[in-house]
């Protein structure tokens, strides 16, 4: 039956019985789809819709997630003004928040509170309404030995406990003769432990499924998300920069890549800690890179540093090359730290514009920009993990490279 005839018959039917208009229109639209050459029968049409459905569900989920993310970020900094308004109108006399109403919202303080480490995991709220998880405090003092207690004992720095007090997130002893070493599980440490647990669970389950099924079938579930990343690190980053000896360094590169990646992503969640924006964390990673690079450096690498080629330039080039050993990991450390910290500061500053201008009309602009920066930060989260791993591989590659074949290449990397 030609499609035009279909349309004609349906139109006739519409004229005859217009009781259930909606049903007929539906029927009509279904018939019209037959006009398209590719959708010859109903099953093809069904297949098409089946294909579209999961994609649509996914995109709705992604949009919701982004909206939620931006509102959560918003809500987090929204709290201080609530407090201000509250004490402004009701004049509630609170002992330590007297001049809150006159004080402008200090965005820098809010930003730094989000970026820096803390002895309690602050979720939301301000003052007495804040919701925070106290974390264990472990200190070693030269007089009292090891001590372990909860950070809730300090009551956000308002109380002292056992001769110790918390001043600007730093534990100080009342006794001046006592010197203490703070080994506490801070917010950053707690997040690192959490991310390690997540990574262990994820990768052991992935490894187990490879053990069970081998590589005979296509990867499923989380395996299919992580396999391309793992293969990318192994083939493109490790093999591409190190060469044949890359096999030995793949475990380290994979660990670094996924540790940085997962912590970058956790840091973007509003209640997450800014671990990769902590210089101690990036310092530790870059020290690992420094040690691994120099332990595996072959004679060619050391000759290049200690006896650079034009011998009459030795006394200039040798110190430069020697300092170069340390500047490369230093740049790695600074790059990751600065990128992640700056990203967080930019998002908070954009949201903070609302409170600086004290008007709600700036909110759409700042939320839109914050959302844009947040999406950009997703890219940066992957990119910084990639850049750190790639440069680590590059440094290892120059250290283990065969000197004869790669002389010009190794020379080019230093300039």
């Amino acid at each position, binding site marked *: 039956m030609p499609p035009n005839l279909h349309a004609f018959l349906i139109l006739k039917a519409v004229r005859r019985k217009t009781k259930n208009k909606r049903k007929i229109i539906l029927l009509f639209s279904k018939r019209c789809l037959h006009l398209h050459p590719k959708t010859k029968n109903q099953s093809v049409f069904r297949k098409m819709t089946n294909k579209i459905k999961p994609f649509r569900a996914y995109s709705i989920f992604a949009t919701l997630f982004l909206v939620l993310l931006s509102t959560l970020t918003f809500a987090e900094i929204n709290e201080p003004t609530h407090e201000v308004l509250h004490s402004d109108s009701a004049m509630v006399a609170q002992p330590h928040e007297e001049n809150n109403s006159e004080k402008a919202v200090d965005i820098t303080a809010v930003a730094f509170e989000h970026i820096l480490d803390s002895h309690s995991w602050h979720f939301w709220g301000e003052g007495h309404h804040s919701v925070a998880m106290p974390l264990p405090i472990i200190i070693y003092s030269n007089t009292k030995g090891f001590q372990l207690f909860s950070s809730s004992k300090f009551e956000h720095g308002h109380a002292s406990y056992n001769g110790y007090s918390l001043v600007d997130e730093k534990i100080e002893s009342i006794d001046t003769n006592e010197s203490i070493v703070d080994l506490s599980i801070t917010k950053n440490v707690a997040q690192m432990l959490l991310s390690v647990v997540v990574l262990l669970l994820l990768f052991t389950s992935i490894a187990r499924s490879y053990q069970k099924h081998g590589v005979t079938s296509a990867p499923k579930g989380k395996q299919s998300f992580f396999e391309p990343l793992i293969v990318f690190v192994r083939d493109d980053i490790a093999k591409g920069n190190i060469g044949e000896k890359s096999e030995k360094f793949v475990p380290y590169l994979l660990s670094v890549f996924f540790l940085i990646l997962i912590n970058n992503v956790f840091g973007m969640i509003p209640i997450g800690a800014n671990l990769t924006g902590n210089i101690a964390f990036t310092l530790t990673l870059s020290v690992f890179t420094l040690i691994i690079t120099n332990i595996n450096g072959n004679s060619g690498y050391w000759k290049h540093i200690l006896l650079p080629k034009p011998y009459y330039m030795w006394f200039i080039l040798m110190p430069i090359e020697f300092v170069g050993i340390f500047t490369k990991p230093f740049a790695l450390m600074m790059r990751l730290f*600065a*990128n992640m910290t700056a990203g967080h500061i930019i998002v908070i500053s954009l949201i903070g514009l609302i409170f600086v201008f004290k008007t709600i009309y700036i909110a759409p602009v700042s939320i839109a920009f914050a959302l844009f920066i947040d999406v950009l930060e997703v890219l940066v989260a992957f*990119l910084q993990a*990639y850049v750190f791993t790639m440069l680590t591989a590059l440094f290892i590659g120059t250290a283990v490279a065969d000197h004869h074949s790669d002389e010009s290449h190794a020379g080019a990397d230093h300039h």
Partner: protein
Amino acid sequence: MTGSIAAIGAGLAVIGAGIGIGQIGGHAMDAIARQPEATSKIQTAMIIAAALVEGVALFGVVVALMSK
């Protein structure tokens, strides 16, 4: 006073990054126009180079923040 000087420093860092990323983007576009089939490779290299330039600019931003 130190705050405004830090702001000038941050601005100078941004100028440097702008020149750097502009150069990278412009030359990458030239390269893509010459060899459209190598687009993906050029894009990857471009993003890495842009990230490195951005990293250096962020050093400036962080120093400006810290001096406050």
